[in-house]
């Protein structure tokens, strides 16, 4: 760095140029690998493209992909599956995550070890989580069949991956196990930011445990609760790896979410234009959801 150049930038009137300079590499890179591809996506969603190559001539503009999409039962089925999955998985992630956070937020010996353990699944890569649950739900020697028979829920071994309802349940269980630690991590951070004084004051006033939970803990957690909820829902909404590796979207499209459908159309049938149209719809939903939470988002998430 030449001294004259730096001195120049040190002058208050020029300082903002340094700001732009530092931002430039990121803007350039984001432009090349995120914004440009997004524009390409939207562009090919309006073309009848099979295999995307950018050096080919542009196909004529058409809205056929979107028309086909909205009249396709597969699309509505995938939207319904996605909605079901988002609601069920987010709900259980919340109950489990909040429950464990409240539990390990108590003071006890081994507290830090317990916190380390309950958040552990967060660190397990999704594909590895799938390996674990695919084996636990194995049709003949899986642990789950044995447990469920012992508990009397089922009479004989279930082939979890050939029944639509069972496969959907396995996907839910895997996603909940992988997803709840994020909720408990966030909730713990929220719980620890509540001043102890609030509780002491409430105790002096004679509030019991339940009243303290309802009147102090839950309201104080509300902002972080909202953000976490949106983040978890978006994660379930967009997830590809868990479902694709676990069931591939089957059986009978029982676990085919919008993400899986997008991927199947693009790389299974090479209908890139049609797939992009589904992807664009997904993106619009994501943007609306993230806009809703934007105003409340803490900086560090």
């Amino acid at each position, binding site marked *: 760095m030449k001294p004259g150049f730096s001195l120049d930038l040190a002058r208050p009137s020029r300082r903002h140029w340094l700001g732009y300079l*530092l931002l430039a590499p990121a803007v350039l890179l984001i432009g090349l690998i995120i914004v440009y591809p997004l524009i390409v996506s939207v562009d090919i969603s309006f073309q009848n493209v099979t295999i995307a190559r950018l050096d080919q001539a542009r196909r004529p503009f058409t809205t056929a992909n979107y028309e086909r999409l909205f009249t396709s039962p597969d699309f509505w089925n995938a939207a319904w599956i996605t909605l079901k999955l988002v609601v069920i998985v987010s709900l259980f992630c919340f109950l489990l995550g909040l429950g464990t956070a409240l*539990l390990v937020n108590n003071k006890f010996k081994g507290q830090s070890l317990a916190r380390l353990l309950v958040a552990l699944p967060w660190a397990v890569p999704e*594909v*590895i989580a799938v390996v674990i649950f695919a084996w636990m739900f194995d049709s003949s020697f899986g642990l789950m069949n044995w447990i469920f028979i012992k508990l009397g829920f089922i009479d004989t071994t279930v082939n979890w991956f050939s029944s639509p309802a069972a496969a959907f349940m396995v996907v839910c269980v895997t996603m909940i196990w992988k997803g709840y630690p994020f909720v408990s991590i966030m909730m713990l951070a929220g719980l620890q930011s509540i001043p102890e004084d609030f509780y002491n004051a409430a105790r002096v006033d004679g509030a019991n445990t339940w009243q303290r939970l309802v009147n102090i803990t839950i309201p104080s957690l509300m902002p972080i609760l909202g953000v976490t909820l949106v983040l978890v829902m978006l994660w379930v909404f*967009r997830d590809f790896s868990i479902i694709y590796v676990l069931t591939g979207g089957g059986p009978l499209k029982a676990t085919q979410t919008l993400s899986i459908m*997008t991927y199947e159309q693009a790389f299974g049938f090479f209908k890139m234009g049609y797939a*992009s149209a589904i992807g664009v719809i*997904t993106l619009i939903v994501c943007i609306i959801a993230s806009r809703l939470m934007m105003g409340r988002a803490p900086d560090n*998430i």
Partner: protein
Amino acid sequence: MKRSLLHSTILYAAVIVACALLVFPIYWLFITAISPPDQLRVLPPRFWPEIPRWDVFGAVMRDRPILLWLGNSALAAIGSVILSMTVSVLAGYSLSRFRVRGGQSLGLFILTAKMLPATLLVIPLFGIFRTLDLIGSLWSIVLAHATLIIPFTTWMLKGYFDTIPRELEQAAMVDGCSPLGAMARVILPVSTPGLAATALYGFVLSWSDYAYARTFLTNAQTNWTANLGITTMKGEYISNWGDISAASILVALPVLVIYLFLERYLVGGLTAGAEK
């Protein structure tokens, strides 16, 4: 506050049961790996093998190209972290310290980019990488993973720099440092914990990816990442769960170790560290 004996017994019991239930799947993966194959397909299942098979990790590394896959994952992760950190340290600092026009909306855009569905971005990237002849090459993964990492790292670093008092670099500039010099000599050293946590988180994001590897690397087996390799083992006609579990542990281990370091940053928030 003192707790009654009953109260603490219930508390400990609840904690132990919760931990046991939630960590059990990881334990089961481990047990599956070290059980001899003929003890896996038995009912009732064994919760501890009679003769643990500790050599399974060595065996699976000999039988399968696990080390090659792990190496590829490491190369991709290190490459994409270096790329992402380079641009996002500068950008995060700029967003934290300067009032640049459009900075606000860039920040919002970056936040939105975290919401991008991988299955959408993967389509145009596939087209772009085909045109550039990068399909099958680890470079495609380095670039694709940067799309996952940059939104996170930029935002985390901006937040981290926000917690560092401006007086620090103002003092350095009074002492004759240039703005860039003040950043490099004062702010970056103070930020080491934040930089490390952010970089490690980026590493985890890249290491855990499946979607991009599945799409861009399938035709060059020698360039497979570990996650992609594992799924091909699962897909075999009769899955050899012992080998898959052993390989899975090898793949999960690096991120589990990183998690042990990252945990306190996550729970304590990324806010501490500047005062030291």
